[in-house]
C-alpha cells in the first residue's frame, strides 16, 4: 500500500494545487512534496535489505489480468525513490525566488512529473514501466516549453520528439517479449521478472538489445544520442533543468539495470563493449567540451553528460561494483547537479549573465554561497569523503574489472572533472569583481534551506556510504544471477 500512496499522492497534490491555485500554489506544492518525502523516507527506514520487492501491490489491469498494475520497491528502486522524494521539495523550494506566470500550473506540473518518475522507479510490470516512462515526458515538455528561454519551442520539441522516437522501439521490443512468454498456454505475462526467464535466440537478443539501448541511450544520454541535451538544459527554466538532470536522466540508467541487462544478457555479451566504448567516448567528449564552455548552465549540462557516461559504462560492465556504483552515483549525481544548477541560477539571476568571463570576485560578498558551492563542487569532482567519490570509485572499479584500457580512459573523468569544475569556481568566485558582480547578495534564508539538505547528503553518502550500499547489495547480487 505504501507504494500505491507514493504513486497517487503527488497526483492528488497536483490536482489540489490546480484547484486552489493563486498565490498559495507554491506553498501548497511544497507541503505536498514534503509529505511525499515523508512517505519515501518511511520506505527508506523500513526497507529490509534483501532481494525482494517490498511494500508492493498488484491489481489485474488489462487483458484479463495478464497485464497488471503492479509496483513495489526493491533494492534497485529504493535509492531512486528516495532521490525523487528528496529532490522534488528542494526543486520546488528553489523555484520560490522566481515569480513564474500561472504558478498553479507550473507547480502542479512538477508534482505530476514526480508521480510519473516514482512510477518508473517502482513499476514491476513492463508495460506499466513503459507507460510511466512516456508519461514523464509530458509534464517536463510543457514545463520546459512554456516557461523556458527564447529558443524554447524548437529545442524542447527536438527533445520531445527524439525521446519518444527512441522509446517507440522499446515498446515494440516489449510487445514482442510479451508474446514470447508462455507460448504454450497463450496466456501471456508482462511482469518484468517473467521476462527475465525468457529463452531468446542470439538474433532476438541482438535486436532487443538495440531497441532497448536506443531508448535508454537517448534518455541518459549516451554519445552520439546526446544532441538534444545541452540545448534543452540551457533553454529550460531551472526547476525543469533540475528535474531533467537530477532525476529524469536516471530513468535511462535505471532502465538498463532493470530491463536491458537481465532480459538480454547474451545481447549485452555481444554488444556490451560497443555500449561501453560509446559511453567512454561520451565521458571524454563531454568533459572536453565542458572545459571550453563560457556559459555556466551549458558547462554544467556537459558535465552532466560526461558523468552519466561513466554511469552507463559502469552498468554495462555487468559487475557488482559497476551496478552498485551506478546506483549510489545516481543518488549522488542527482544531489550535486541540482545543487550546481541552483548555484548557476542564483548567479545568473543576480548578475543577469550566464557568461563566465563577465563574472568574478563573487566570493568577496558571499561567504555562505562560497561554502555551499565549494561543498557541492567537491562532491562533483569526487573528492574522497564526499558522495561523488563513493560512486565514481565503484564505477571505475567496475569498468576496470571489465577492461583495463577502457577503465583507464574512463578514469580521465576524475582529472577532467576537476579541471572544468575548478575553472568554473575560479572564474566565477575569485578574481576581480566586475560591474555585474559588485554588491552581489549572499544567499537568503529560503535559498540556504535548499543548500543545507543537499550539503548534508554530500557528506552523509561520502562518510557512511554503507548505509546506502547495504540496502542495494542483495538486490544487485540477485540481479547478477540473471546476467550470469
Amino acid at each position, binding site marked *: 500500500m505504501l507504494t500505491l500512496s507514493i504513486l497517487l499522492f503527488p497526483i492528488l497534490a497536483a490536482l489540489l494545487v490546480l484547484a486552489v491555485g493563486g498565490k498559495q500554489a507554491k506553498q501548497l506544492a511544497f507541503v505536498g512534496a514534503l509529505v511525499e518525502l515523508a512517505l519515501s523516507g518511511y520506505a527508506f527506514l523500513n526497507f529490509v535489505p534483501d532481494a525482494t520487492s517490498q511494500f508492493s501491490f498488484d491489481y489485474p489491469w488489462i487483458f484479463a489480468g495478464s497485464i497488471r498494475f503492479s509496483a513495489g520497491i526493491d533494492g534497485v528502486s529504493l535509492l531512486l525513490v528516495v532521490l525523487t522524494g528528496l529532490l522534488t521539495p528542494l526543486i520546488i523550494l528553489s523555484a520560490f525566488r522566481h515569480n513564474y506566470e500561472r504558478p498553479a500550473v507550473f507547480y502542479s506540473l512538477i508534482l505530476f512529473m514526480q508521480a510519473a518518475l516514482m512510477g518508473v522507479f517502482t513499476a514491476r510490470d513492463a508495460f506499466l514501466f513503459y*507507460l510511466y516512462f512516456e508519461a514523464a515526458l*509530458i509534464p517536463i515538455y510543457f514545463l520546459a516549453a512554456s516557461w523556458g528561454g527564447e529558443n524554447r*519551442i524548437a529545442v524542447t520539441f527536438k527533445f*520531445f520528439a527524439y525521446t519518444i*522516437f527512441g522509446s*517507440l*522501439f522499446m515498446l*515494440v521490443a516489449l510487445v514482442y517479449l510479451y*508474446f514470447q512468454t508462455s507460448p504454450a498456454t497463450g496466456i501471456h505475462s508482462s511482469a518484468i521478472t517473467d521476462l527475465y526467464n525468457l529463452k531468446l535466440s542470439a538474433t532476438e537478443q541482438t535486436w532487443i538489445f538495440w531497441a532497448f539501448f536506443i531508448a535508454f541511450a537517448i534518455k541518459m544520454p549516451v554519445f552520439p544520442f546526446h544532441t538534444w541535451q545541452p540545448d534543452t538544459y540551457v533553454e529550460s527554466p531551472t526547476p525543469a533543468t533540475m528535474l531533467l538532470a537530477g532525476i529524469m536522466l536516471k530513468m535511462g540508467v535505471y532502465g538498463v539495470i532493470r530491463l536491458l541487462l537481465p532480459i538480454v544478457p547474451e545481447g549485452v555479451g555481444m554488444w556490451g563493449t560497443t555500449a561501453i566504448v560509446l559511453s567512454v567516448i561520451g565521458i571524454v567528449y563531454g568533459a572536453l567540451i565542458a572545459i571550453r564552455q563560457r556559459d555556466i548552465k551549458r558547462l554544467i549540462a556537459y558535465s552532466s553528460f560526461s558523468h552519466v557516461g561513466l554511469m552507463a559504462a559502469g552498468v554495462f560492465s555487468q559487475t557488482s561494483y559497476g551496478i552498485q556504483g551506478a546506483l549510489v552515483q545516481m543518488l549522488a549525481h542527482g544531489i550535486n547537479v541540482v545543487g550546481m544548477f541552483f548555484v548557476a541560477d542564483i548567479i545568473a539571476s543576480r548578475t543577469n549573465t550566464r557568461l563566465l568571463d563577465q563574472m568574478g570576485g563573487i566570493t568577496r560578498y558571499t561567504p555562505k554561497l562560497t561554502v555551499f558551492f565549494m561543498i557541492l563542487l567537491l562532491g562533483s569532482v569526487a573528492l574522497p569523503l564526499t558522495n561523488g567519490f563513493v560512486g565514481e570509485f565503484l564505477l571505475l572499479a567496475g569498468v576496470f574489472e571489465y577492461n583495463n584500457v577502457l577503465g583507464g580512459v574512463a578514469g580521465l573523468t576524475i582529472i577532467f572533472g576537476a579541471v572544468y569544475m575548478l575553472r568554473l569556481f575560479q572564474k566565477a568566485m575569485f578574481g576581480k569583481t566586475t560591474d555585474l558582480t559588485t554588491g552581489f547578495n549572499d544567499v537568503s534564508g529560503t535559498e540556504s534551506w535548499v543548500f543545507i539538505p543537499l550539503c548534508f547528503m554530500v557528506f552523509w553518502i561520502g562518510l557512511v556510504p554503507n548505509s546506502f550500499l547495504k540496502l542495494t547489495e542483495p538486490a544487485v547480487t540477485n540481479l547478477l544471477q540473471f546476467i550470469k
Partner: protein
Amino acid sequence: MLSIVLLSVFGIVLLYLGFLKSRAVLLPATLLFILLALGAGFLEWNKSYLYFGDMLLISNVAILFTSIVLVSAFMVVSLSGDFLDDEAAQPAEYYAILLFSIVGAIMMISYENLIMLFVGVEILSVSMYILTGSDKRNLRSNEAALKYFLMGAFATGIMLFGMALLYGAAGSFTLTDIKGYIALSHGRPSLLLYLGVLMVLIGMLFKVSAAPFHFWTPDVYEGAPTLFTAFMSTVVKTAGFAALLQLLSVAFSAIYGFWWITLAVITGLTLLVGNLTAAYQDSFKRMMAYSSISHAGYLLVGLAALGQQSKQALVFYSLAYSVATIAAFGILLVVSKQRTADGRPDDTYTAFNGLSRQNPLLAFILAVSMLSLAGIPLTAGFWGKFMIFSAAVDKGMVWILVLAVLMSAVGIYYYFRVVIAMYFREGSSTQIQVAPFYRFVLIAATVLTIVLGLIPGLFQNLI
C-alpha cells in the same frame, strides 16, 4: 435490426418535422432518436439473429461497431448547434439525411449478404455526397461534392463488378456460401474469385481512403462543411472497416495467403502517404484529412494481421480514433468560425495560436485529442495502437510494424504543431464563445479518451 427500422422511421418523421424549421426542436429530437436507436441495439445483445432472409446478421461485434457509429453521430449532431447560419437552410433535411446515412452504416456493419453490403455502401455514400455539397454557395463545397460523387461512383462500380465475379465463382452472395465454396475447391478456387476479391477490396479501400485510392480525401474533407467532415472521417471509416473485417474474416479467411500481401503493400503505402503528406500541411483541416488516411493505415495493419487480436483491436481503435477526431473537429469548428482570415473561416495552424491563454479548456480538449491521435500513453489512442501492434507481432509482421512505429513518430511532429501553437505561441486575445451543451459534449469526449487511456479494459469483456 431494430436500430435500422427505428432510424429509418425517425428519418421520415424528421422530414415531416421540417415545417418547424426551428433548431430548438429538431436538434433535441435528432439526438433523442439516436439515443433510442443506441438503446434498441443492445436489446439484441448475445442473441445473434439473422434478418431479411438471412441477409443481415446481428452479432455482438456488429452491435459494438454500431454503437461506435451511433456515439460518433450523437457527438457530431450535438456539435451542429449553429452550423450553416443560412436562414434559408433546411436543417430538418440534413438531420434526416444523417439518420439515413447511419442506416447505411449499420447495414455495412452487419451484412451477411454482399447485396446488403452494396445497398449499405450506396445509402451511406449518396448521403455523404449530398452533405459534402450542403454549403451550397461555397464553390469549394460544390467542387468537393462533385469530385466525391464522380470518384465514389466509379469505385462503387468496381466493387459491384467484383461482387458479380464472386457470384459467378461461388454461385451465391452470402458470405458463408462463399466461404463454403472456397473450402470445397480444395485450395484451387476459380480465377473469377480472386479477381472478385481484389475488386471488392479496391471498392472498399476507396471508401476508407487507403492509398493509392485516397486522392479524393484531402479535397473532399477540406471542401465539406467541418461538421460533415467530422462525420465522414469517423462514421464512414468505422463502417468501412467493420465491413472489411466481416468480409475478410468470414468469407475470405481461407485464402488469407492470397490477399494479405496485397493488403500489406497497401497498408505500407497508406502509412507512408498519410503521415508524410500530413507533415507538410499548413491547414489544420487538411492535416486532419491526411491524418485520417494515416489512421486508415494503422487500422489496415490490424486487418492485414487478421487473427484473434484483430476484432478487439479494430473496435477499440475505431472508438479511440472517432472520439478524438470529433473533439478535434469540434474545436476547429468554433475556432475557425470565430477567428477568420479574409472573411473566411481560418482553418490553418495559426488560427490556434495562443488559444490556451483565453480558452484553457478548449486548448486542453484539443491537446488531449492530439495526444490520443498521436498515440501518447495515458490516452485511448495509445492502447489502440498498442492492440494493433500486438496483433501484428502475433502474426510476426515485423516489417510493417517497424514502418508503423516510424510513421507514428512522424505523426507526433504534425499533431504537436497544434499543441505548440496553442500553448507556446502568442496569438489573438479574443475569447472564443462556446455554448454550454457544445462544451459538455467536448468534455465528455475528453473524459472518455482519458478514462480509456487509464482503464482500456473498460469495455473489454464485451468483445
